[in-house]
């Protein structure tokens, strides 16, 4: 054998070992369950042939016996192109020691994040991990060696977008990165929690159901940690690709511009029909959003969480926009604490990555009452208020129908957006006219003079009075909405900074 042949043989043998992951049996079990392994997930994510692995021959070194049975040390890392753009990728390999956190893979993650941050690449986390590796972390020496050697490990300054998928049992590491990311898609059947149900059962001495503790329903509906929920690994990875397609690679550039699909705007002619004639009836504001933005471009975030608020990314004339809206379909559009939190997180995302915001307004105000106060509504309302005011990207609001009370400010009124437009159906006031009659005149429905007083209150809430004082810069016909917004986005382009905003909220927590 020549020197070259010997070298090639050893290289090939080591490569086979590294690629073997946790061995054929574990891989076959996953395949039978319809679940992709770490390397298949990367293949799905990256353009063919574009993935360059980093640390292929890295293994655990804490324990001599682990050297031969920890390929990649349980986390496959590297750089790949996602739809033509460079990204850094971390795919947890659960077949190797449950992708538990060890000393070597900790260095791999740190390197990926460092390169992504310094060179302006999106970071992708394909999550599934059992948490701290045992017994490596045990004892004071284990703790001192493994934990806390990278103080910035869990700090987000949003220099580049982070996208995560929760694809299996996620405890520790994967959970942290999923909730720290700008986008987290969860596959049904996956579990996202601080610690495993086994450990939780030991701690609280009762049976813990994994789905109840960290399943998709909990995170889609209660915590909001799942931005989207899908059925398969493939759909989860496609969702990450879709998310990244709206974002710039880093915070110092404007988002990419896409072609405008044929048929965009064709719903505009009949858009008024989406709004019920009676002000007591509700509708789904997402239909209005879908009609206005480029065809099929609305990418909703946290659809099942705080449903009174709607958030998402979309494109308008090929340009990425963020959407925040009130949805009368839920609670009549009366904003609650969860909805405020959801809208705030979308404002922070958009501002951090130079994405202009569109606001669609139809809210009778904030939910009030004991439950709202217990949910800390005042704090949530002020968080949204500050976030919207601090957002330095263009903000365009359209009042479709109701805009009442403090919620008027929270949804872009009173100089909290760059342009306020109103449909002729808009009504703006401090409180619902019927309640106002009670507060101002002390009259209940049916009392003599009530109807006349109500008619006067109604008239005073009309869009024309609002336009007269220039609180709305434009009253627009509903069918003009798309063209108006496209034109105003053009007017408000951040020319002085090449489309880049100030990112005043880059250190805002990803959940709060």
């Amino acid at each position, binding site marked *: 054998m020549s020197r070259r042949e010997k070298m090639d043989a050893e290289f090939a043998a080591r490569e086979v070992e590294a690629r073997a992951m946790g061995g054929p049996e574990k891989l076959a079990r996953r395949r039978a369950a319809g679940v992709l392994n770490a390397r298949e997930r990367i293949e799905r994510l990256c353009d063919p042939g574009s993935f360059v692995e980093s640390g292929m021959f890295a293994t655990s070194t804490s324990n001599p016996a682990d050297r031969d049975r920890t390929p990649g040390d349980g986390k496959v890392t590297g750089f790949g192109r996602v739809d033509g753009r460079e990204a850094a990728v971390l795919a947890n390999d659960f077949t190797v020691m449950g992708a538990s956190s060890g000393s070597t893979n900790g260095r791999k993650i740190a390197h990926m994040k460092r390169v992504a941050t310094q060179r302006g690449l999106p970071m992708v986390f394909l999550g599934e991990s059992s948490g701290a590796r045992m017994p490596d972390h045990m004892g004071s020496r284990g703790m001192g060696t493994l934990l806390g050697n990278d103080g910035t490990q869990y700090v987000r300054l949003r220099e580049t977008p982070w996208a995560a998928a929760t694809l299996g049992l996620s405890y520790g590491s994967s959970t942290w990165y999923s909730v720290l990311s700008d986008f987290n898609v969860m596959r049904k059947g996956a579990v996202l929690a601080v610690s495993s149900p086994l450990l939780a059962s030991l701690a609280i001495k009762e049976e813990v159901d994994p789905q109840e503790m960290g399943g998709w329903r909990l995170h889609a509906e209660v915590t909001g940690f799942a931005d989207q929920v899908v059925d398969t690994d493939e759909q989860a990875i496609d969702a990450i690709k879709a998310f990244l397609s709206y974002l710039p690679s880093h915070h110092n550039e404007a988002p990419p511009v896409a072609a405008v699909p044929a048929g965009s705007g064709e719903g505009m002619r009949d858009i008024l029909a989406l709004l019920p004639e009676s002000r*007591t*009836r*509700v509708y789904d504001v997402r239909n209005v959003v879908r009609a206005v933005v480029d065809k099929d471009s609305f990418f909703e975030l946290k659809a099942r969480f705080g449903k009174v608020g709607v958030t998402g990314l979309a494109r308008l004339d090929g340009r990425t926009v963020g959407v925040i809206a009130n949805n009368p379909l*839920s*609670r*009549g559009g009366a904003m609650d604490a969860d909805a405020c939190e959801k809208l705030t997180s979308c404002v922070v995302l958009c501002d951090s990555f130079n994405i202009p915001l569109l606001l669609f307004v139809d809210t*009778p105000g904030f939910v009030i*009452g004991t439950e709202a106060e217990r949910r800390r509504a005042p704090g949530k309302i002020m968080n949204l208020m500050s976030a919207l005011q601090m957002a330095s990207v263009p903000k365009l609001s359209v009042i479709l129908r109701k805009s009442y009370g403090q919620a008027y400010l929270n949804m872009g009124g009173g100089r909290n957006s760059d342009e306020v437009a109103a449909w002729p159906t808009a009504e703006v006031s401090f409180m619902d006219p019927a309640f106002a009659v009670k507060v101002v005149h002390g009259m209940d429905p049916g009392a003599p003079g009530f109807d006349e007083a109500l008619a006067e209150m109604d008239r005073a809430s009309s869009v024309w009075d609002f336009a007269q004082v220039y609180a709305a810069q434009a009253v627009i016909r509903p069918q003009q909405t798309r063209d108006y917004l496209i034109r105003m986005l053009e007017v408000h382009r951040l020319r002085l900074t090449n489309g880049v905003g100030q990112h005043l909220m880059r250190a805002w927590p990803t959940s709060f």
Partner: protein
Amino acid sequence: MARLKIKAEVTGSVWKIEARAGQKLEPGATIMILESMKMEIPVVAEDGGTVAELHVAEGESVNEGQVVATLAE
């Protein structure tokens, strides 16, 4: 078969029940309409399913978070 409890999002009264027990609902279908804050607010079967039980009647008042229907997925 998983049973899913559907809760009222708002405090109000049951104005109209649109679904009947045993009926199979499409995702997004309206189960009943509540009257609250002078508005008609639908209770929706987000994922669809079969109506196993309706726990309230028309005219009854409901509290936020109260289970108003049970669906079988």
